[in-house]
């Protein structure tokens, strides 16, 4: 009997000993993210999990404030233009990589050269396609050369992480990264967790939080449980309906805007009256409240991100006017005609719910609406393939560079992968803006494009979505509009 009791006691003690999280340092936090980094090489993949970690290890020439304003990062100042295709960057002095290598012009040249090298076939080339190369001027001055005039170049360099030239040759970039950032890589247990420690030599000063452990938890319910049980301090992608059950949360406008792209050459949707009716038939505000519990805002008449350069702030959201929508459908002679709504499920926040609610509104106008929720790869084929354009297709479009060119080229330009129009005039305007280096002129072209797209209802913009983070009681953090989780901006209450 005693041995049995003893065995039980030992068993229980083991369990308790194992569950107590031993604090290795005074202030370390645990962040649960949805997907593990595929690699820690900062230049190969376009991978959210990789960025969430590497954004704290590496830095870029340009940076953004939490509200999205572009400011110098590792550059000493905003770049100056030498000529239409050459930008000159002055670099910060005295910055060192975690392995002691100095950050200088050679590091910039090595970083640019590596990421654009066709042999590396980097997925990030979607962001750097215009960059031709980098040339060292002196130790702390670099010229970046583009293939043609590229006004977005500074924004592009907000994306490009700077690697240590020596380490990139003989080090393990994929498994043990070395950057200039506020946190240093410590360990990575594949599949389970990854730990960073504060860089005491950081050029802006040592960060407040001494260490951060990332845990990879795919299932949102499990992330939530971990926050409730006190294992996690920050969790990503909290669902709006759980904001009331967590100790603390923080919401911020995200990079994503949900929108339907309409086929302007399709049987029914080629009539601008029908397209306008589709825009007027949706009660967006009530969807914000019922679907998102208020954590989303109605898109202001365009699918361009409001934080992006080139956003037309003069447009108003489409009003909700079902009677007018019905009248327009009648006028267009489209009553009872078929409209197919294509979408996917489970990729973006409340995607299926948005698609089905909108299809419901559209059915009220008198159109014969069918919804086609497709498996994701089939959906991608519908969105970007060579086949016929759908009448309407849903997308939650993300704008990482916060420049209007992204959404314009992708959805408005007739050759854009997700575009469903054949407007050559609009395409010409987008191309003109893309190379227009005068900021005011460029902005005015973008304003015109959005005005036109709004009037002709090429798209049905829905919502500017929000990122919601669940936080533990002790965390203090205001999340950023660019969705980066910068640990040096977080605080732990004593």
């Amino acid at each position, binding site marked *: 009997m005693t041995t049995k009791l003893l065995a039980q006691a030992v068993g229980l003690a*083991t*369990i308790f000993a*194992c*569950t107590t999280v031993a604090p290795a340092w005074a202030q370390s936090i645990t962040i649960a993210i949805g*997907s593990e980094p*595929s*690699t820690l*090489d900062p230049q*190969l*993949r*376009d991978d959210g999990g990789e960025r969430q970690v590497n954004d704290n290890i590496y830095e870029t020439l340009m940076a953004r404030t939490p509200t999205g304003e572009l400011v110098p990062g590792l550059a000493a100042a905003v770049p100056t233009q030498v000529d239409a295709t050459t930008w000159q960057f002055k670099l910060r002095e005295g910055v060192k990589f975690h392995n002691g290598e100095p950050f200088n012009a050679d590091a910039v040249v090595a970083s640019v050269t590596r990421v654009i090298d*066709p042999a590396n*076939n980097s*997925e990030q*080339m*979607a*962001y750097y*396609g215009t960059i031709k190369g980098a040339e060292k001027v002196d130790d702390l001055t670099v010229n970046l050369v583009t293939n043609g005039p590229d006004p977005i170049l500074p924004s592009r360099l907000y994306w490009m992480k700077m690697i240590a030239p020596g380490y990139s040759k003989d080090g393990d970039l*994929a498994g043990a990264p070395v950057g200039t950032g506020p946190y240093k890589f410590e360990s990575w*247990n*594949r*599949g*389970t*967790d990854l730990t960073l420690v504060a860089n005491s030599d950081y050029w802006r000063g040592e960060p407040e939080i001494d260490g951060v452990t990332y*845990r*990879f*938890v*795919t*299932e949102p*319910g*499990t992330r939530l*449980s*971990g926050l*409730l*049980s*006190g*294992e996690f301090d920050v969790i990503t992608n909290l669902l709006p309906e759980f904001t009331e059950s967590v100790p603390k949360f923080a919401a911020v406008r995200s990079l994503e805007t949900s929108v339907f792209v309409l086929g302007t050459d399709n049987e029914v949707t080629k009539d601008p009256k029908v397209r306008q009716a589709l825009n007027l038939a949706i009660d967006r505000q009530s969807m914000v409240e019922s679907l998102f519990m208020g954590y989303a805002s109605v898109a202001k008449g365009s699918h361009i991100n409001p934080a992006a350069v080139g956003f037309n702030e003069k447009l108003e959201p489409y009003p909700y006017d079902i009677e007018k929508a019905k009248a327009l459908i009648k006028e267009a002679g489209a009553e009872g005609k078929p409209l197919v709504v294509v979408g996917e499920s489970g990729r973006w926040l409340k995607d299926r719910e948005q698609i089905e609610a909108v299809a419901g509104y559209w059915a009220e106008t008198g159109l014969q609406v069918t919804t086609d929720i497709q*498996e*994701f*790869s*089939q959906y*991608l*084929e519908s*969105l*970007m393939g060579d086949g016929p354009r759908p009448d309407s297709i849903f*997308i939650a*479009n*993300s704008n990482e560079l916060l420049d209007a060119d*992204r959404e314009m080229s*992708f959805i408005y330009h007739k050759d854009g*992968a*997700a575009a469903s129009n054949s407007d050559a005039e609009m395409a010409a305007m987008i191309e003109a803006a893309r190379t227009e280096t005068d900021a005011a002129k460029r902005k005015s072209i973008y304003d015109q494009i959005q005005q036109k797209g709004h009037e002709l209802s090429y798209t049905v913009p829905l919502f500017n979505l929000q990122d919601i983070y669940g936080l533990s009681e002790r965390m203090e953090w205001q999340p950023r509009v660019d969705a980066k989780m910068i640990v040096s901006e977080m605080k732990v209450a004593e």
Partner: protein
Amino acid sequence: MLQFILRRLFQGVLVVFGVSATVFVVTRLAGDPVSLMLPLSATEAQRIAFAQQIGLDQPIAAQFMRFLGDIVTLDFGNSLWQRRPAIDVVFERLPNTMLLIAAGLGSAVILSIPLGAIAALRPGGLVDRLTMSIGLLGLAMPQFWIGLIAILIFAVQLKWLPTSGMGTVAHIVLPALTLSLTPLARFTMMVRAAMIDELNKQYVKTARAKGLGLPRILRVHTLRNILVPFLSISGWELISTLSGYTVVVETVFAWPGLGLTAVQAIQRGDLFLMQAIVFVIAILIVIIGIVLDILSKAVDPRIELN
């Protein structure tokens, strides 16, 4: 015996080949991995370059020949998602899954025999009714739900155990428990039914009439007789666990095993990793089948290995 093993191995090779060929075809029918892998904003030129790099621009027959060569050398190419050899990812995650199965299925086997036996000795008694109710629940509730409820009770409310992840002994308790519930229910019911059946047979009555005690009858005769059906049902459960239950349980508990990795590979269109995972699981299932047949023969020599 040797002849039997050789024949089963040959059959196994055919099975693994068939499964692999099916996966090869299905992964190529199920959408374009290039558009799943690359960001939405990738240009056409990038898509073409990427397809070339991973060999998807080749004719399907050439791809299949390359795939067959890969199988023989156990080289499935680089995982598109992790950019390292797919087989390395599989061998890194496989032990975690094995550990979870050993803990989950092991406890189901160990618990089910006494539970089923006690229930069978007093059909309709308290233990019997309790076991049957729990068993029914175990069979009726989806593991996904059991897992989340277990987390809520034992991790969030009681704070006895961690919610997810791997690392200490405590981390394995909840996932193993969740994994064990369905097999435990099935085993217990099977043991109970087989025991009731056996206990009504003439040899038991004879043995009792001779004055043998019940424990001895159970140990020497009855349990041995139900071991063969028990082996085959546990083999079946092992295969179901390996190829199905672990997918759900590992996802809920963020357990870094092969099941979770399979889900992630599918989501990311990582066809090379999918091929490697399915190949390794198919081989394991073939091996399990052979081992079970040999074990059955060892337990009951009357069984013909044909």
